């Protein structure tokens, strides 16, 4: 148990002084917590659609009813806006899209003319392309309904029949039934957890930087003269880094969970366990990097190069599915991705048996990387 003093000493060096405590523990914790507060307020906005229905006939309101049934949109109804005002709503960002139904919408359709509702949007995106497709379907349906009840040869429509036909469609026989899926919202909304993952990795690289300093200043070499096994030294240093990071993690998580009310739907304990596995893998990654460079200045520079991009491709800041396929495959080699997925599964109501594979991968990652990383402890390799 000779490694305990080494670990304790490493902890003292990172957070033993007042400056260390503030800079390494409290400040990052506070920053992250504030961000958590900000992001929890930002989420969950539905697309706002303003519908201006000026139609005097039956069909306009039928179109509106079918839109109102869609739960993904927040529909606002008006009757007396000009088209200009509708455009302004979208341009000013008050609405995400607006729809104008002209006053002769029904009449034109009955007369067999082209009858158009107008959809205004900023630009084509997947959601509003779907909205347009839906509107198209509805409009086609209305046109077809009108044609069906049209009296042969004449341009007149039996409005009772039309109403009956529309009413029959209001209670459809065939429908799509959505099966409730319990899915986590971490993968699709990773910002908060992603930031924590990034910060933890940066803080780990700091304590590994201290180990590097030992090597540079030959303290490490002297340690080997003491009656210690090299395994004790390695274990002491790595355990110390882990404990430091764990303390920071507990503070950050505690603040975000209990003070700022961020709740990803995962119990505090399970979250901590997953993140602990991630810590181990991240420690491996950081120390493997440290084994490649000569001094601690280089380490902090090279870390910038590795930490930010790996966080990006592993989906810490935006959903992984936005990236091209080859980058998504590349993400499998980053510990962040597995940690995020594990947390996502837990958030979706999964148990630890569901994330066994993820934890195993993180553990193997740690084992392999730490083997490389132990090079950081070789005392003779300095610049």
């Amino acid at each position, binding site marked *: 148990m000779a490694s305990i003093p080494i670990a304790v000493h490493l902890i003292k060096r990172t957070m033993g002084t007042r400056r260390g405590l503030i800079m390494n523990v409290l400040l990052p914790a506070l920053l992250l917590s504030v961000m958590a507060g900000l992001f929890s307020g930002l989420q969950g906005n539905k697309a706002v659609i303003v519908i201006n229905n000026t139609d005097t006939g039956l069909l306009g309101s039928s179109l509106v009813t079918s839109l109102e049934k869609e739960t993904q949109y927040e529909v606002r109804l008006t009757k007396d806006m000009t088209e200009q005002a509708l455009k302004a709503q979208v341009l000013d960002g008050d609405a995400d899209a607006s729809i104008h139904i002209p006053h002769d919408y029904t009449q034109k359709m009955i007369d067999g003319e082209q009858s158009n509702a107008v959809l205004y949007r900023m630009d084509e995106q*997947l959601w509003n392309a779907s909205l347009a*497709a*839906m*509107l198209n379907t509805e409009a086609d349906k209305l046109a077809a309904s009108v044609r069906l*009840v049209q009296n042969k040869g004449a341009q007149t429509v039996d409005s009772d029949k039309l109403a009956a036909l529309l009413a029959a469609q209001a209670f459809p026989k*065939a429908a799509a039934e959505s099966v409730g899926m319990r899915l986590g919202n971490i993968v699709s909304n990773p910002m908060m957890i992603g930031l924590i993952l990034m910060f933890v990795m940066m803080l780990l690289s700091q304590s590994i930087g201290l180990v590097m300093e030992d090597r540079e200043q030959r303290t490490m070499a002297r340690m080997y003269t003491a009656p210690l096994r090299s395994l004790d030294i390695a274990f002491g240093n790595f355990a110390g880094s882990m404990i430091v990071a764990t303390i920071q993690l507990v503070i950050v998580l505690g603040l975000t969970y209990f003070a700022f009310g961020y709740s990803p739907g995962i119990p505090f304990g399970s979250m901590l366990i997953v993140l602990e596995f991630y810590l181990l893998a991240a420690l491996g990654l950081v120390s493997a990097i440290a084994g490649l460079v000569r001094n601690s200045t280089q380490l902090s*520079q090279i870390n910038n190069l590795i930490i930010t991009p790996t966080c990006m491709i592993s989906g810490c800041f935006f959903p992984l599915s936005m990236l091209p396929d080859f980058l998504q495959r590349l993400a499998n080699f980053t510990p962040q991705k597995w940690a995020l997925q594990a947390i996502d599964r837990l958030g979706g109501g999964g148990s630890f048996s569901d994330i066994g594979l993820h934890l195993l991968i993180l553990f193997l990652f740690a084992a392999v990387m730490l083997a490389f990383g132990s090079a950081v402890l070789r005392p003779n390799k300095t610049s």
Partner: protein
Amino acid sequence: MRACWITVYYELLKYSRMRSVLIILIGLPLLLILLLGSAFDREIKPAKVALFVDDQGEMRSGIDTFWSDESIAPYIKQLPAASEKEVQDLVTEGIADYGVYIPSGFSKRLLAGEEATWKTFSGRYGEKNMAADAVINSYMTNLNLQLAAMATLGPDQMAGRSQASGSVETKTSGIVIGNLGTEENQLFGPTNSMQYYSAAYLIMFLLFGGMSAAIALLDQKESGTLQRLYGLPSSFGANVFGIIVGAAMLAALQALVIISFTTFGYGVDWGGHFFWIAWICLLTTAAGSALAIIIASFAKTRKTMQTLFMILVFVMTFLSGGMMAGIENMIGNASKWTINHWANVSLRAIMSGSDTGSVWHEIGILAMIALILSLFAVLRLSKVVKQYG
């Protein structure tokens, strides 16, 4: 003058040997541009839908025609599955964005006049769920229309329409779409995402590069070599100027590599007018170096200066929309107080080839900022370089 150039030469020689610094100043922006540019491109990515059709009844052919229809291809990419469980698993895993299971008794129940359903599994992304919902809705609407017509009007009315069963109707379009952004992306303006992030990260890393002058001065002061320059029979000012010019030349190299690499490697269109782009880069570098020197004059040590300046650049980049496009709309005018904003806006204006007058306005403001910061930096410079100042 000669002393100045010799200093410049040795500064550049020094930088050329700091490989890790060069990688960060040049390699990192290129990497970030690639990652962000490809993640946020404006192409619509179709939703991946896991599909299992168990129905073998009369409507199977109609269902198959529907799913293989060309008109849904922009919104939907199918992933065939072999069971309902597999559909669900694909969605849970995140391999599919949405799942559809068509039960075996679907045709039978409907034709018997009972209610029948498809089972859908919504995935994680609201946008993709909407797309898949819309596609399924188009099928259901069509089907229900026929069913309703049969029920209310009697089967004979359907004679003329039977061949259309199950397919998406696209003959008459009842909707007119007005894109108010007219060819412009909501987030990135008239430029595409690659151009947007190329500009943002060129500017951010030029500001970072501007820091190298202040770092060099503080380093040389801390190690005591700067003071020895007083002993030389040449102007001290010329030497200090040389150090700053050396750093500026590093920034110029940075800009050159980033712009040419993005042009040829990523196909970014910088819009010509390289004279103006050079001006913007120069002004940004000047503003960045001046800001770093001002901070150095207060911070005294290299570490504190570096931390403060890096935080400042990060905040400015963030506020000007370099990390999250569209943030300007959320935070109002705060972005106008950053150096990045004016540089980015003018670069983007050049890229989109807008007329010269509007670009000069932004460059003018950038020049004003650079001038004011430089004047202030000159006043504070003695605090940076004098050991006991």
